[in-house]
């Protein structure tokens, strides 16, 4: 049986890779994908703890996190489409004025 700390280390690594992606990439869609990766890293530790303590409550949290992620992606991609339609770019460095 694999110790739960292995899963925690893996989830921390996935979270960090996602956070690095959010910070490094300039394409708004890739930034959203980095957020998805961070959510997945958190989900993995939820499931690992659920397995360790023998309680399925962690699975419910994962279910709710996936729901929130789906809502976030729908709104986020709608914003990206709107941004592209108005500014012709999805580079988030070029979207920094509060009004124009």
């Amino acid at each position, binding site marked *: 049986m694999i*110790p739960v700390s*292995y899963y925690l280390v893996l989830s*921390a690594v996935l979270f960090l890779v996602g956070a690095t992606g959010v910070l490094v990439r300039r394409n708004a869609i890739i930034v959203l994908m980095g957020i998805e990766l961070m959510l997945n890293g958190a989900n993995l530790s939820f499931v690992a703890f659920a*397995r360790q303590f023998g309680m399925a409550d962690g699975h419910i949290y994962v279910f709710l996190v996936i729901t929130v992620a*789906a809502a976030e992606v729908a709104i986020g991609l709608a914003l990206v489409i709107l941004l592209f339609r108005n500014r012709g770019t999805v580079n988030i*460095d070029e979207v920094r004025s509060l009004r124009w």
Partner: protein
Amino acid sequence: MELYFFLFFAIVAVASSVAMILQRNPIYCVLLLIMVMISIAGLYLMLDAEFVAIIQIVVYAGAIMVLFLFVIMLLNLSREEGGTFRIQKPLAVVLAALLFLPLAAMVMSYAGGGTTTPVDGGEAGFGEVEQIGTLLFTKYLLPVEIAAVLLLIAIVGAVVLTRKGTVAVDG
């Protein structure tokens, strides 16, 4: 044997996610992220979370990633992206490394707690649809209802935002 499966899925997940960060083409980024999702679903199966593994594949790898792919193809994005903030990349790596420290401290302090071995087997039916459904509609009824309202708001918001002509701002 189980350790080999864990290492296989973990290495595939980490390698695909790192490649996703480095990949320039957004289409390949999406496909690599799907690889990450599928290997995480494999890890969920190893953790006796069958229901979560299935919704991971159906909802994440299936629906959400296809939505990303659809938007990338709709916007026809394959150009190189260039940043204007020059020191951003080294700064981002340093910040991520700094974020690693509290996470590592948390994992280490937990690993030192002595309860690192999972319970063996669990009770029958752990993580299956029946148990999840019972929990969803008894103990977690209110969160489920809130999630439903959230999804409704997201649907309405996405439709309102992308509707042509009404909210478009003159560029």
